Structure formats: C-alpha cells, structure tokens
C-alpha cells in the first residue's frame, strides 16, 4: 500500500494540543452533518458515479489514473548527451539586461499582460488553465532557451538569467498560470542538464516539437517540515530497474502531465531523480487544489509499486545533480515571487493615489506611503538577490549560498508584500473584485514550494 497522506478529515487538533472528545451532542451533530452532506450532493447533482475517471481539479481526494502518455521513442540518437556550456564569466558589475534579453522580456511581458492576467481569475476558480494557453507559451519558445540547439532547442549557452527574467515577467501576469506554462520546461531543462544521450533522444524531441506535453517536476511531499533532502518516497533497485512508492504533492497539471521527473530516495542513499511516464502501471493522480497557484491545476502524484526501467534514473543518481536541481528550482520560485510582488506594487500605487479618505488621497498619509516605500525597497532587494544567484549559476560559479539567501528573502518579504497589498486596499483587497487577494495566496507558495519550476 501507499504511504497514506495525512488527511484533514475528522476533528482537528486544537492549538492547545487537546483533541476535543466527541460527546453525545457531538455525535448527533456529526451524524446530521453527514446526512445533510449526502442530501446536498443528491439534490445538486454533484454525486457522480463511483467509478469516475475524470480528474476533477477543484476538489480534493478524487484519485484517477495518470494521463495516457504518448509513446516517447527515440527518433534519432545523439552520440553523447547534448549540454549547454556555461556562459562566459563577466567581469564588470552590471544590471543592464542584454538587448536580446530585453527583447525577450518585452515579448513575455506582453504575453503575460494579454494572455495571463485576463484569464487569471477564471483559472483560479476553475483550477484549470485556459485551453491551449500552455501550448501558446510553448510556441513562444519559453521551453526552448534551456534546450541546446543541437537537440532542437535554441540555447547556445547556459541562460539562467534569461530564464529568470522570463519567469519574472510571466508571474507579473499570474503566478498560477505562469507555473502552468513553465512546468514542462522544468522537465525539458532537467533533461538538457542531466539527461544521458538515451534519455535526451527519447524525450527531448517532444519538447521541441509542436505539441509540447504537459510534464511536471515533482519534489514536494505532503508532510510537515518537508525537507527535499530527506524524502519519504522510496526507490529500490529491482531486477536492473527501480520500483517507486510514495506520494508527491504540489504537482502542476497533474491530471494532464505525460511525463514526470520524480524525486525519490534511492535505497536509503539519498535523493535521486527518476523519469516516470504517466501511463506506467501504479501511477495515479489526485486533485489537490490549494490555497493559491490554482491556475496550475495542482495535484498529488501517487506511486504504488511503480516499476521503472534502468534508464529511468536521471543524472546517474548523483547527489550534486539533485542539489543543483533543488537550487535551480528555488531560484525559479524567487523569480516568480519577484514578478508577482511587482504586480502587487504596480496595482497598489494607483489605488492608494486614487482612493480618497478624510479629504485627500490615502497615499498622502505616511502610514500608507511608508508601506509602499517598504514594498518598493524590499522588492528591489529580492530582485537583486535573485539576479545575483542567476548570474552566478549561468557563469558556472557556486550559487548555493546566493540561492538560499534569495529564497529566504523572497519567501519572507514576498509574503509581506502580498499581505501589505491586501491591507492597503482594505476591504477591497479582501474581495475577488481585485486580484490582490489572489497574489496574497500565490505568494505564500514561495516559502512552501520545492521543485515544480526550474531555470
């Protein structure tokens, strides 16, 4: 059996640690509640046949098989794995993006403003990205920068800064939809960075073609104090291949994904990455709608006795590869935090300038104005921390420290900016007329997420 994820059903534990004992009144209330729920389901036609197979993204607990995956077959063999060389070392301190980067920024910003922002509210309530949106993002080439030219991409060298700028610009539109669009490139980037020639030949062509598959990098697990370096999901060697068991959470577009990169502990030696096709027996997905990032159709990936070929192990199980993966993923989350926090700032400024109280714009009050100043200052700091880590990564310098600091600051200050954003709009910030409450929920993810996106 699968390690069962903790459920929230039943009485919750009060803060003082004493679980309330259910007495006679409680038993009656519980029974009534169950009955009322049943009637409601029947009346509203929500009850569906028990053997439902559709993935219902807005509700927790429904489990279904993984999406039918295409057949990933090598068309052409590479002689050796295709890798992007490090970008050349730069000497001067410089904060100006290159002309090419500015052009890409412009394009993605436009895409985010025209495609993501207007679709964000609906995607948030339906827990699904609009039809074809991830495909449009793929057509724009967001996936291709991380794939070497020789393997069908457009990358000529490590371009972590460019990918960071892309993620930032996307998240300015909407973080959930940005994650939905960027999730496949986490997998293709992983293949480009760590795949061997066979893995690249089998999977990369799908990511450079017309019909880019949904794919997901699954690292998180549903338990408190989750540590990506101490995983519960187990892989054991068996008959030359591997067998995987466990539950992964925060898996974007889980119901559609055809290919997963799954983090699992290999025979107690530490975490490794495995390529898992969605139609492999034992793979199922559960919808896991969460506080935010709802446009990314988050789910859980349940692995029960999943048998994999020897070729499924990514990066040879090297501990450094895994560390690199965790760091690059955290960096991508920092970029998303910067983009979303910028959205908050850009939204709040005109609001506090236009909103009048006591006869003048609320922004004329220091209590309001100083919060805006702090948002601006902390956001600029978050951005610089993120850019420093990104530029070190692409130049092949160590960046563990810089990513850790960027993530610490982006998680804390990003959340503070989300909270202040709602606060500055007052009651209007709390209702869905304005996007600020969504950004508040999305920004909480930055301190929680591991995996999912990669630069």
């Amino acid at each position, binding site marked *: 059996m699968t390690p069962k994820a903790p459920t929230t059903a039943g009485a919750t534990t009060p803060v003082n640690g004493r679980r309330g004992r259910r007495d006679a009144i409680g038993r009656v209330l519980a029974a009534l509640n169950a009955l009322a729920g049943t009637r409601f389901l029947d009346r509203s036609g929500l009850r569906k046949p028990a053997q439902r197979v559709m993935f219902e993204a807005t509700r927790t607990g429904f489990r279904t098989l993984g999406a039918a995956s295409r057949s990933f077959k090598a068309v052409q063999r590479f002689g050796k794995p295709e890798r992007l060389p490090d970008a050349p070392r*730069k*000497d*001067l*301190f*410089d*904060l*100006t*993006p*290159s002309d090419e*980067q500015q052009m890409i920024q412009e394009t993605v910003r436009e895409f985010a403003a025209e495609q993501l922002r207007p679709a964000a509210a609906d995607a948030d309530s339906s827990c699904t990205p609009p039809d074809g949106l991830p495909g449009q993002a793929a057509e724009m080439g967001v996936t291709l920068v991380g794939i070497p030219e020789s393997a069908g991409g457009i990358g000529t060298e490590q371009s972590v*800064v460019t990918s960071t700028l892309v993620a930032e610009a996307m998240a300015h539109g909407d973080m959930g939809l940005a994650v939905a669009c960027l999730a496949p490139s986490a997998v293709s980037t992983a293949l480009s960075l760590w795949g061997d020639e066979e893995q690249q030949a089998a999977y990369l062509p799908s990511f450079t073609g017309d019909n880019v598959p949904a794919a997901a990098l699954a690292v998180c697990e549903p338990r408190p*104090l*989750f*540590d*990506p*370096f*101490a995983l519960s999901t187990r892989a054991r060697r068996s008959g030359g291949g591997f067998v995987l068991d466990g539950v992964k959470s925060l898996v974007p577009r889980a119901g559609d994904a055809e290919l997963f990169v799954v983090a699992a502990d290999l025979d107690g030696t530490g975490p490794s990455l495995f390529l898992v096709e969605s139609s492999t027996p034992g793979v199922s997905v559960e919808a896991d709608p969460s506080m935010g990032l709802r446009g990314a159709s988050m789910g859980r990936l349940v692995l029960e006795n999943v048998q994999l070929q020897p070729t499924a192990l990514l990066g040879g199980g090297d501990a450094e590869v895994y*560390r690199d993966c*965790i*760091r690059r993923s955290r960096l991508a989350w920092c970029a998303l935090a910067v983009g979303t926090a910028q959205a908050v*700032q850009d939204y709040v*400024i005109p609001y*506090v*300038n236009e909103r009048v109280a006591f006869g003048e*714009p609320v*922004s*004329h009050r*220091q209590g309001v*104005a*100083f919060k*805006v*100043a*702090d948002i*601006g*200052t*902390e956001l*600029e*700091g*978050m951005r*610089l*921390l993120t*850019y*420093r880590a*990104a*530029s*070190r990564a692409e*130049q092949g*310098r160590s960046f*563990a*420290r*810089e*990513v*850790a*600091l*960027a993530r*610490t*600051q982006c998680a*804390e200050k990003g959340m503070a900016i989300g909270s202040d954003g709602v606060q500055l709009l007052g009651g209007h910030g709390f209702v869905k007329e304005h996007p600020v409450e969504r950004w508040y929920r999305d920004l909480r993810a930055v301190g929680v997420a591991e995996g999912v996106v990669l630069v």
Partner: protein
Amino acid sequence: MINLEVPKKFTGLVNQAQQAAAEFFRPNSRKYDSAEHTYPTEIDMLASVLDGLNEAGEGSGASGVRRASEKSDGSTRNGGNLSTVLGTIEMCWGDVGLLLSMPRQGLGNAAIASVANDEQAERFAGKWAAMAITEPECGSDSAAIRTTATRDGDHYVLNGNKIFVTSGERADVVVVWATLDPERGRAAIKSFVVDRNTPGFELVRLEHKLGIRASDTAEFRLDNVRVHKDNLLGSPEIDTERGFAGVMQTFDNTRPLVAAMAVGVAKAALEETRAVLAEAGVEPDHDRPANSQHAAAATLLKLEADWESAYLLTLEAAWMADNSQPNSLQASMAKAKAGRVGTDITLKCVELCGTLGYSENSLLEKWGRDAKILDIFEGTQQIQQLVVARRLLGKSSKQLR
C-alpha cells in the same frame, strides 16, 4: 549583461581596505570606544599611507565620489562610486567610528566632491572637510535651516548654531548649510566651505554618544563668520526651479556611503556570530530548509539574507551613480534597508551570542551600539521612506509630508 560580482580590478583596493581595517582599526576599536574624545593618533599614519595609495591608483576614500561627468558610450562603468562603497564596507567591518575619524574622508569631502566646481575641487584638495547641516531646532527638515548667510561685498556673513557635526573638532574646514533668505525656503539654502580658524566660528562642545565614540561630534556657534563668496558650493542664485537640487545632490552620493557603513558593521557582527555559533556546534546549511535546522542557524540565514539585500542595494545605487543614472530612489532604498537591517542584525547577533556578545570582552555589543546612528544620520529611516514613497507614488513634498 547582468552580473552582480565585483570586478577584478577592485580586488587590490578591497584587499587594501581589509588590511587597514584588520591591522589598524580592529586593534584600536575598543580603545577609542572607551576613551571618547581622545584623538586616535594611530590613524594619522594610516591616513598618510592611504593618501599615497590613492594617488597611485583608485582610492577608497570619500574623495573618490566625484560624479562621472563624461557621457557614457553605452557600455557599463565600474568607477569611483562603486570602489568607494566597497572600500567603506571593508573599513567599517574594522570600525565605523574610526573610519568617520579618518582625516580627509569626511562627509564634507563627499559634498565637495559632488558639487564643487573644478577650481574649488582643486583648492580644497587635501583638506579634511566636516559637514554641518543639523541645528538645535531642525534635523531631518533641512529646509527649515535658520543659520543665515548675508552677502557683504565679496563675502557672506554667517550666523547661527550647528550641532552633530561629525569630526567637527578635527577637520580643517566645515561645509556649513545656511540660507540666503529664510523667506524663500529650500531654494535659498546653500552650502559654504568654512575654515575652522575663521574668527567667530566657535566650537561649543563635544557630544557623549551611544556609539561611534571614536568619532567626535561637535557643536558650533557661528557669530558673524565671514566666508569668501568663492567658498559657496554650487550656484549662488536662488533658483526656485531647481530648488534644493544643488545641495540635495550630495545625498545621492553620501547615502550609499552610509548604507555601506551599515553593511560593513553588520558584516563584522555576522562573521563573529557565525564563528561563535560554529564553536558551539551550530552551523547553517544553505541547502536544507531553515525550519529543519537549529533555530539559531535559521536566524543566521535570515540575517544573512537581509544583509545581502542591503549589500546589493548599496552596490546598485553606487553603480548607477558611476553610470550617470539618476539614483535618488535607489540611494534612499539602500540607506533605508541597510540602516534598519544594520541595527537588526547587530542587535540580534548580541542576542544569539548571549552574555558573550553583551560583554565588553567582545566587540559585538559595540557594533550593536555603533549601528544605530547609521539609521539616523544622512537622513533617518523615516526620511528615506518618505523619499522612496514620493518617488514611487509620484508625490511632491507638499502632498506627502
């Protein structure tokens, strides 16, 4: 091309500052904290060595902040502002009070470097210049300055009181802010280079302070002090269009410097605390989640992240000045962030180290005291927030007071 590493050409300068900080400042740090108002004679020697080095190459002093006037050709420049900020961080890792006492490195020197014309820059070269802005009745609201300057032939006659003048006793000249016409507000405020020996320019007393005790803080009375008109920095006209711009421009260059001081002090405290905690068996891991580590390790990570943000904001403000980009916003952001985290970090480090950090046996308690002034002078935290807020919101100082 985005790159946030310090260029190789500054390695020598940073190393020079590190050596000076480690060999001259640290060994004398406690001595002059205890003996307030005693002239730190050791740094005279250091100052002349540094002067020699500065002449030979790019300097690390406040004299290096002269704004690049040549038009940029589109390529990025790493120049005097960035190198000065880097040197300041290292020196203040040694001792911020002693850096403020460095001959010829005063904030007045920065003002001269920023706004003096070429003739003045040459004439005041090699002078140690203090800065006198604050008055008993006016601090952050520098437009309310009451010290007056009245034209009399080729001279101005200055009258008023000035407090909190850093290095006022030791400097050769003091840059005094005074108004040509109290009725005409900010635009009438000008800065004058006043020789310390001018008749009527009287040192009233020296302050006893919470921190930076190695640095003297003077009060002056100006009683009919005659200053030649050529000692007025910037334009003598009262230009209401440009308003305060002339004198305020100084701040765009000096605020990143004060931010750098806070970054330097906080760096010292973080390094010391990391070493103390490592001896106690607590070492932060940059890969593992903070919540799975020792609470002290998690705290260190948080402090280091705040520090890094302040450090990069400071570098950004200096880099913009080097590249002739308007940097008021970024200078104030750097000062705001560095000022507040400088205090947070040094005080938290004392807490993490317990009585070991609280005792005068270590310098941690001293850094906790020194850091506070850096969130006050050259514009308090609240003034920086005002500047940043006005810029972001597009508000004037009349609308957002």
